[in-house]
């Protein structure tokens, strides 16, 4: 609410400024009076403006680099990553002005389209990696609330949270963390060579 009224005040200020700059006929007499200002700021929702990501090459992408160790298994740093020490993060500003909002989080598995070779006796080979995506949101009243989504062979329903307290109107009030990576078949699975990609979707809905 502070944001909305603040923006409204600034809009009024801008109007005053622009009005003062508009050439007007010079009046010889002076007079006093009241000028009423009335306006509104329509609610809007937005997201993006990513910063502080682990990817410098591609905006809006969490780059995990080389996934495998020298034995072609998922790197222990990715397996052992946690919410407090994630494998990758991306921060951005999101939310709605003037209204409470619901945040929905979903994700797809980290996969390559390269197929699992047939007849790999003795090894478990995988081309799919599951992980947990977490969105941490800074709130207007202070504090942080989180929402998690963990991928699986059959993707679960999206996770949803309504934030009535409002999002802090500050840069990077949202942070997405990726952690707890697990190849299908377990940590000892050998990963198929290829390019792995996935999508995390954050949906903002006015409540």
């Amino acid at each position, binding site marked *: 609410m502070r944001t909305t009224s603040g923006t409204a005040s600034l809009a009024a200020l801008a109007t005053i400024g622009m009005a*003062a700059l508009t050439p007007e006929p010079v009046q010889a007499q002076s007079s006093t009076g009241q000028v009423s200002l009335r306006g509104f700021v329509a609610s*809007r929702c937005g997201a993006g403006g*990513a910063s502080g990501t682990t990817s410098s090459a591609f905006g809006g992408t969490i*780059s995990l680099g080389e996934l495998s160790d020298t034995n072609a298994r998922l790197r222990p740093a990715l397996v052992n990553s946690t919410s407090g020490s994630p494998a990758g993060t991306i921060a951005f500003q999101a939310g709605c002005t003037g209204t409470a909002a619901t945040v929905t989080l979903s994700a797809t598995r980290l996969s390559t389209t390269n197929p699992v070779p047939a007849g790999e006796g003795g090894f478990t080979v995988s081309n799919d990696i599951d992980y947990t995506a977490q969105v941490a949101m800074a709130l207007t009243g202070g504090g942080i609330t989180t929402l998690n989504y963990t991928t699986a062979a059959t993707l679960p329903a999206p996770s949803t949270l309504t934030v009535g307290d409002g999002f802090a109107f500050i840069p990077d009030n949202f942070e997405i963390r990726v952690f707890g990576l697990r190849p299908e078949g377990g940590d000892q699975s050998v990963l198929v060579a290829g*390019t792995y990609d996935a999508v995390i979707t*954050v949906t903002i809905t006015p409540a």
Partner: protein
Amino acid sequence: MRNPILRKAAVLAWLAGALLGFGGAAHAQSVQPVILDLQPAGRQATQTLTVSNTRTTAIPVELRVERLVFDANGTRGTGQDPGDLVVFPAQAVIQPGQSQVFRVQYVGDGALDKSRHYYVTVAQLPVQLPEGTTGIQVLYNIQVVASVQPRSGKPDLRVTETNIGRNTEGRAVPVVTIANQSATHGYLSRGRLTIVQRDASGRELIRQTLTGPDIQQGAGYGLIGGNEVRSFTLPLLLPAETGSIDARFEPEARR
């Protein structure tokens, strides 16, 4: 600019513009408005929404429509597009610093017996990552609530139940149940709610009026469909965890 008043005004205007611009830049992709109220026919059957891209890269977006229904938790998308809304264009690539206006038109049944509701999702589309890049793309979707009302009628919102609940921090807050006794949808935030809490002896502990903006900020728009009932947890901390709650809703004069 020699006139100091004009110079000051110009600085203020620049400052305001710069700060307002920051609001847009902070949200690299923004959608406005996020609530559309449509009529089943005539000029008001069509409205527009604007998607702005303040990123340094183009954003491919797609607009998807799904029917919205009410359940115990509020509203829920059905995942089904009944074809009642036509969005044009349905897809666009919005260049850096540019905005795209999308037209939303209701083309469904013109003789509605009650309001209908839809989500129009502005969905960012994934792009092909460069060959050899391993990564997780983060996509931002923003949903717009579009409602179509019957040709005539206006909402009739009434408080049917009050309780003391808890907010996300575990503090005591009022929970009100609102019934819409009209076939036309309404919004709790388009009115004022006066809340009174009394203790067991009838002594008044708190009396507070929540304005529309208060409700919208703390509980959302509060969409209530035609002939629907919804409960809302209100953004008002109560001084006691027990006692009785009275609530009175006054719709704003015009809708």
